[in-house]
């Protein structure tokens, strides 16, 4: 009963915030409505007893949209030339070494029997809690996709930096 009531209110708020997200002309207001939608989704996850997903929803999306803010302001406000001197000279050899290590890990995971392809339905709920259950599958069966996703994110970040700063170089 209570669940349905909370769902109705939160879902309505989420939809309204989503509509205003598109309708409003101010970029910052738009981003704020986006945060509102994400927070509503977090509450809906909470309603399902998925505490971990709910909190991650707040952390990841609140954090991500905040970075969006900073990027917008940064990109609009950039007017000085960036020095072309590399501040961290020692990072290239270390990056090469760690990259090789990562590649070796990926090859090992790809060759070992741990890889798990195909999607299965949800099994019975984990009895030891969300955190342990997520960690177990993430770092065993899905270790390779997990590593690949993190590499993808780093590539995306580097790509944004290159695109944003090309004008000045």
């Amino acid at each position, binding site marked *: *009963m209570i669940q349905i009531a909370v769902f109705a209110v939160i879902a309505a708020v989420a939809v309204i915030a989503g509509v205003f997200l598109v309708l409003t002309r*101010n970029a*910052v*207001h738009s981003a*704020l409505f986006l*945060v509102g939608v994400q927070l509503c989704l977090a509450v809906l996850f909470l309603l399902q007893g998925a*505490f*971990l997903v709910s*909190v*991650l929803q*707040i*952390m990841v999306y*609140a*954090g991500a949209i*905040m*970075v969006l*803010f*900073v990027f917008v*302001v940064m990109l609009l406000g950039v007017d000085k030339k960036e020095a072309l001197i590399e501040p*961290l000279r020692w990072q290239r050899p270390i990056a090469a070494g760690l990259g090789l290590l990562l590649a070796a890990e990926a090859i090992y995971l790809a060759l070992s029997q741990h890889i798990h392809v195909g999607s299965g339905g949800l099994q019975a709920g984990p009895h030891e*809690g*969300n*955190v342990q259950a997520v960690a177990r599958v993430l770092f065993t069966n899905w270790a390779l996709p997990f590593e690949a996703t993190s590499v993808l994110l780093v590539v995306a970040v580097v790509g944004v930096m290159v695109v944003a700063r090309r004008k000045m170089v």
Partner: protein
Amino acid sequence: MSMTFLADLVVILAKILIVFLVLSVLVIFIVWFERKVVAHMQSRLGPNRWGPFGLLTSVADGMKLMFKEPITPITADHVTFALAPGISMLAAFLAFASIPFGTSVLIFGHRATFEIADLNVGLLWVLAMGSLAVYGVVLAGWSSGSKYPLLGGIRSSAQMISYEIALSLSLIPVVMSAGSLSLRTIVHAQSGVIGSIGWLGPVGGVGKFIPHWYIFYHLPAFLIFLLAGVAETNRPPFDLAEADTELVGGYHTEYSGIKFAMFFLAEYLHVVTISALAVLLFLGGWNGVTPNLPVLGWIWPLLWFVAKVFFFVFLFVWLRATLPRLRYDKLMAVGWRVLIPAALTWLVVSGLAMAGSV
């Protein structure tokens, strides 16, 4: 709706009310405490006019702020301008939803624990509320429609996001040791003593008197957490967001009256949050160093917890009174080039140590 459901609801609402009231009074007390301690460190008397030892000065200040005319700049974005202090305060209060203060107490046959909700992701909840708190600051800076608040807001968003990484990374070794993200479980994992220390040889028996707190296992992580924690609260020496010599007052320059009071309240609540986290994660929470006094029951652990939190609050005040403010580029350099690599290194070291001991 059954009776047990109603009873649970009443207990939860009572807990929320008590935590809210205690925190509000605590902030008033800490503001007085800070002014008094800083004054004595600078050979002054500090507030001493209003109430015994000037205790009511903060109350008077609060009243003044409440009755002061709230001014909104004509260039401000009105809705966001009004929303920002609310977001700040809400995030600061919500962080306490999963912070446990002590063991438990039996009231009318109902066992009530000293926290609002024991989430199995309690630690993540506190960190998530920390990342929401950035919004209050940034929106305040942006919506004021004037340049100093904007600069303050940008500075502090960059600072808080940067130091959040080091802060979270420094907590992972502790989570690995305890094997849980629930703050209550982490505290339970720190009860008892270290026991005989093998590699010390004949003097290894001294370990029987050292409590099993994670500060003795993860000292580097504790130091990183403390530094990042001070930066996360935007307190001196990391108060770049409101550097009054450069930015007038930073993100809250244009705020007055009750809205300013809300930012003020949020800042001091963050001090309490970081202090409570330090106590829960590294200093054994409500576990005392001496054997528990069963006569006092639940009061004894609560006293230990409050005493430890106040130690950290004093530390915050001490830092403010003694250290000059960092330059902005140095602050970012410390965060990205020192704290984050150090936290990652300690994460790997403690991971290897744990893998070796299994």
